[in-house]
């Protein structure tokens, strides 16, 4: 009897898997990623009958193919970690697709136990399951559970442990003989493959060979890749390809589909024999709601209304907590300022570190509220309906129906928007969506637009700002199209997705969602932003301007301007001036753009310092100063807004892109945005000058 057991929880999405996981582990769990992919991995510990259990929540999947990172993560875990028992959570009210997945778990040669979850809902809907007979047909123990009420969890764990303890090489070998029979044509081919695979004893020990043979018939790329280590890999590959080809000739359809049809045929039969359903269980409520929310005319306006409400509510509710955060860090800064002697250290602590952390934390209330509201939309099942409404339009540009939400979120803040791309299943869809999110003007860019539009388009500042937002959206769609036809070319990811029934969200579920996302934000963005703020602080303060007597006679605003000019950032601005000159800008705008990497709203305060406006919050006087500068014209102001829209976003966003997509895509994103930003601004500036627009 093992003291420490690994229990994996697996199953379809939306079957209450996470509820069962939470019911087993309580509050003791941590969230990470599977190695190599950003598929979330939850792990928890619990003690049961004096045994230590490590419970792993596998990603919810419908199948175990090599097509999506979730499914690969799930099956690699089962193959490599060899958990002592797998709990397959199934929705009792509609078993077929769950049993289909269950057959695939069994083929992987791991001990499986089924949890007939949501047993109460199923009974209420008039579904009766002959569990004993179903258990016999499937060859696995089954336990009824109601995860949301913690019912049946004890029984489930007890049965799971009993199963894990009964496992022995003999029982596994026995189980591997009793697998689904795929019919004589397939079985013959499988037997041939298994015989050839057996020749390599290392393989025999490492993989369930029947499973590998089935995967080879399914033309699974991952299974073929594994053959590289096989002694007779080439021969197996040849035989597998021949067999799959023969099957396709024989059945007249794709080999993969033949295999899955055989599985479904068994499942259909098993369900017919064991499940009785009282006639007519119309889900009229869900249908009636869908009639409105998925209506071809009302659906989209309703969605836009909901998103508008989410933003309004987020900023309305968030205003006060953001203010508290700001004043908290103001107080901390003041305290540190009083404790530390005047000088560099004080400046570092107050302006660099506390200012930087304050910048991160002031967003936290907004993130919590935003994710709370979005989790409600997600958990109720509304987000899948949004995909139905928006997919047609987005698909034209190579995006996916589910890309819409992250893009809309981008208007608030790119950080949660890029984190929200996790809901997309296809890797390429996810990357494209994350890459175009920065084009959606975030809240921090608005102050820049307001300043410039107010100063140079006094007749109609709102139209100028709208034009910039619109340009961003257009660039997002065009860039998506560009990425999809170059770097991320390939077959469109299938859209096929499930429409979950409407459910009321649970407090526990909302709490976990929000908690996890917030922690991820603080950890990932927080560390990098802190570092970046310190770097930007150093760049704007070093080297320090020599303190001469003449300098001291100047007003403080003038002193600040001179010291910024003298600093590394100022010098950098001078160095890159030749680059921004063709865009109609001078070195000061270069410096502002560079400091904007810390946070976009800093651009405004940098311009304030540059134009020696002591009180940079007073945008009225800064507007006047900008208008008085001969460099600026409405055209240049518009170009500057465009430039700020396109050039790479703040460090927090870049850090999030790195965390979600890796260094390579961060590099692609930064290079693309820099080049595109320069080219677009250059084009607009020069065409505008030729046509004498707004000079």
């Amino acid at each position, binding site marked *: 009897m093992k003291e420490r057991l690994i229990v994996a929880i697996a199953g379809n999405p939306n079957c209450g898997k996470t509820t069962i996981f939470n019911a087993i582990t309580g509050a003791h769990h941590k969230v990470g990623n599977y190695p190599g992919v950003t598929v979330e991995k939850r792990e928890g510990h619990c003690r049961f009958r004096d045994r230590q259990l490590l419970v792993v929540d596998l990603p919810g999947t*419908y*199948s175990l*193919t090599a*097509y999506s990172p979730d499914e690969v993560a799930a099956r690699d875990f089962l193959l490599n970690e060899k958990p002592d028992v797998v709990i397959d959570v199934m929705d009792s009210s*509609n078993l*077929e*697709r769950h049993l*289909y997945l269950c057959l695939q778990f*069994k083929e992987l040669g791991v001990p499986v*136990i089924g949890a007939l979850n949501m047993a109460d809902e199923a009974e209420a*809907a008039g579904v009766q399951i002959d*569990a*004993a007979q179903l*258990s*016999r*047909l*499937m*060859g*696995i*123990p*089954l*336990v*009824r559970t109601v995860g949301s009420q913690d019912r*049946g969890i004890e029984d489930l764990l007890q*049965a799971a442990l009993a199963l894990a303890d009964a496992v022995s090489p003999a029982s596994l070998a*026995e*189980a591997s003989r*009793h*697998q*689904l*029979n795929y019919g004589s044509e397939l079985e013959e081919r499988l037997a041939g493959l298994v015989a050839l695979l057996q020749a390599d004893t290392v393989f025999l020990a490492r993989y369930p060979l029947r499973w590998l043979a089935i995967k080879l018939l399914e033309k699974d790329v991952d299974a073929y890749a594994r053959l590289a280590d096989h002694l007779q890999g080439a021969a197996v590959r040849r035989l597998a390809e021949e067999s799959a080809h023969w099957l396709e000739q024989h059945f*007249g*359809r*794709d080999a*993969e*589909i033949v295999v*899955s049809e055989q599985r*479904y*045929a068994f499942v259909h039969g098993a369900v*017919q024999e064991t499940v009785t*359903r009282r006639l*007519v*269980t*119309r*889900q009229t409520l869900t*249908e009636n709601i*869908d009639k409105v929310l*998925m209506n*071809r005319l009302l659906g989209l306006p309703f969605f836009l209304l909901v998103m508008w409400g989410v933003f309004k509510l987020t900023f309305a509710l968030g205003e006060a907590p953001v203010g508290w955060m700001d004043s908290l860090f103001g107080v901390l800064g003041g305290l540190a300022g009083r404790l530390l002697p005047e000088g560099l250290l004080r400046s570092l602590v107050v302006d660099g570190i506390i200012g930087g952390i304050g910048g991160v934390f002031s967003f936290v209330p907004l993130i919590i509220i935003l994710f709370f509201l979005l989790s409600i939309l997600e958990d109720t099942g509304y987000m899948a309906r949004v*995909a*139905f*409404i928006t*997919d*047609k339009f987005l698909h034209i540009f190579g995006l996916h129906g589910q890309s819409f939400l992250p893009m809309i979120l981008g208007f608030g803040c790119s950080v949660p928007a890029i984190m929200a791309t996790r809901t997309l299943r296809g890797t390429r869809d996810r990357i494209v969506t994350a890459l175009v999110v920065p084009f959606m003007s975030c809240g921090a860019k608005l102050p820049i637009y307001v300043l410039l539009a107010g100063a140079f388009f006094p007749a109609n500042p709102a139209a100028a700002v709208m034009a910039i937002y619109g340009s961003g959206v257009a660039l997002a769609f065009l860039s998506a199209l560009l990425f999809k036809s170059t770097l991320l070319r390939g077959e*469109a990811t*299938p*859209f*096929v997705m*499930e429409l979950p*029934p409407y459910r009321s969200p649970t407090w526990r579920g909302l709490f976990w969602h929000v908690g996890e996302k917030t922690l991820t934000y603080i950890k990932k963005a927080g560390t990098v932003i802190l570092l970046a703020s310190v770097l930007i602080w150093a760049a704007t303060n070093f080297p320090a301007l020599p303190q001469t007597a003449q300098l001291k006679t100047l007003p403080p605003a003038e002193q600040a301007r001179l010291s910024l000019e003298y600093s590394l950032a100022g010098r950098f601005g001078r160095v890159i001036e030749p680059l921004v000159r063709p865009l109609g800008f001078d070195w000061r705008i270069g410096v502002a753009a560079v400091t904007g990497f810390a946070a976009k709203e800093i651009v405004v305060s940098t311009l304030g310092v540059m134009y020696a406006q002591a009180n940079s919050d007073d945008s009225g006087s800064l507007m006047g100063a900008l208008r008085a500068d001969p460099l600026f014209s409405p055209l240049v102001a518009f170009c500057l807004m465009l430039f700020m829209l396109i050039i790479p976003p703040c460090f927090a966003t870049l850090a999030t892109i790195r965390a979600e997509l890796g260094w390579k895509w961060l590099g692609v994103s930064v290079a693309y945005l820099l080049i595109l930003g320069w080219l677009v601004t250059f084009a607009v500036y020069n065409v505008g000058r030729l046509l004498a627009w707004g000079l």
Partner: protein
Amino acid sequence: MMLSELRAFDRFKVVSIHTGRETGRRLADMGFTNGSEGTVMRCGFLHGPLHVCVGGYQLLVRYSEAAAVEIEVLEYAPHGSRRALGGGQGRGKGRPAAACHVCEDAPAPAGTRPRARPRVTCLDPDEVTGDVQP
């Protein structure tokens, strides 16, 4: 006939899937397999996605994906519930009982043979133990 040619509330039975690789596999995994029955619930605007109920599951499929699923029509929706042009969301009074579970249990329409009850053999008769908790 292909699934994409149907309109709201038409009932169908899947014959086969005419695409391979990821799309075909996804369709098969989600329950579009030989013999499974379903109902089109609604069609999106301008060949947008279809909302289909197959074997008790509510699914969304793109028009282009539906165009790869060969089906056999079991029953066309009554006239009043179909729109004259395009695949509309059927409106009108003659709405049929198209709720999802009904598509499984409704009596087979005239002209279709009753489904033969498939024979099922146990996967593992020896392993059945007393673990089942009723």
